[in-house]
């Protein structure tokens, strides 16, 4: 039995007819064909499927599409306009080598959007706790922390830290 739902995705309203068991991440990827949101573990551990539901970061592999009925979601595709300037977090990850393979990056960035919204000047410890639900198997997290700090500085209107590589 399907159900009619109305979900606003990146500012566009979609009227959809979905099975109740359809996961939100499958709705985004397979019904709306937006593949920026990734499926990693499919068990709410890795955070690759993180999106914003009414501005709050959630793991879309563990939410049903029907639960989003009447709500707004934002995915990585909605962060910056097509061809326009990147979001400070996207720029921060790019400038600071905050990704290698890139699989975790959309989830990592969507999580950090909420993190910086609450606190645009987080300490390293706050960033590490803040991304504790997002796994990265490449970077070792150091450059992700730097990327978030860089984005925070940019959002505060301050000079962004140097992105020269550190050799230790």
């Amino acid at each position: 039995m399907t159900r009619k739902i109305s979900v606003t995705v990146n500012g566009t309203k979609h009227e959809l007819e979905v099975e109740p068991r359809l996961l939100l991440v499958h709705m985004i990827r397979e019904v709306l064909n937006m593949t920026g949101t990734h499926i990693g573990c499919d068990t709410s551990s890795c955070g690759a499927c993180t999106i914003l539901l009414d501005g709050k970061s959630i793991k879309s592999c563990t939410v049903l599409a029907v639960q989003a009925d009447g709500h707004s979601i934002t995915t990585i595709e909605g962060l910056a306009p097509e061809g326009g300037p990147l979001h400070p977090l996207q720029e921060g990850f790019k400038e600071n080598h905050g990704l290698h393979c890139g699989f975790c990056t959309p989830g990592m960035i969507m999580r950090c959007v909420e993190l910086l919204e609450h606190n645009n000047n987080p300490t390293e410890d706050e960033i590490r706790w803040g991304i504790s639900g997002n796994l990265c198997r490449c970077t070792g997290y150091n450059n992700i922390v730097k990327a978030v700090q860089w984005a925070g500085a940019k959002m505060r209107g301050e000079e962004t830290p140097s992105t020269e590589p550190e050799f230790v």
Partner: protein
Amino acid sequence: MIAQSFNYESPATLAEAIALLNEHGDEAKVLSGGHSLIPMMKLRFATPSYLIDINRIPGLSEIVEDVDGTIHIGALVRESQLEHSELLGRHFPIFKDVTKLIADPQVRNMGTLGGNLAHGDAANDHPAVMIALRASVIITGADGERSVPIDDFFYGFYMTAIQQGEILTEIRLPVPPKGTGNAYHKLERKVGDYATSGVAVQITLDESGVVTAAGIGLTNVNPVPLRAARSEEALIGKPLSDETIELAARFASEDCSPSADLRGSEEYKRHVTGVLVKRMIKKAAERAQS
């Protein structure tokens, strides 16, 4: 992983939700934050025919203090709300301790206190906290609501006092008197893991430093969430000393009943429980005195 097919209902009122639960009996499950239930449905450990989503019922998401000195926490209050509530923070710093250790920020944006308790899992962290704080659980059915003391709430593995046709709607906490402190910690192998052992303590000290009230709850070291009653008794009526704290810790490690698993042996978990009891008593006492 895709769950088995089910019918989805999203009632707008509590009465409607209860009627649906009565109509569908044990074919129905209540959906709150969904972060225990949906994973179980995806693994097909849970295969309800009807999912009753209570998230659209108004009035279940507030934290308020009434004139009688009771805090009311709606069943749909999210972990992230508990984490940042200024009202709770004033009386219960323990909520900051515990929420930080539950899963991760995204899961805490969905997971609810009501769901955490109603799931009836001794590995969850809130049961021990509720035991330490002497909470009451409000359960609502067709005949109205009833209040169940936390000590009568957990029956067994995934079993609680909630009967068919009933919904957990609220948690009530008595505001503790002056001179009270509380604290929680768990040993976890990594973020988001269940506790190897977890300990919640609330303690009240009078002006001369004598313990007048104590609540101690244990996570994941017993088939059901456990009140460390002998440990509480070891503290009450005496000034806190290394000897009474040591005795309380010994009683807790003797009285729990952990099972060996990938997190450690039975002996190790008893040891960790004792260590955490000591540390949490000291931390709660420090907070009581500040």
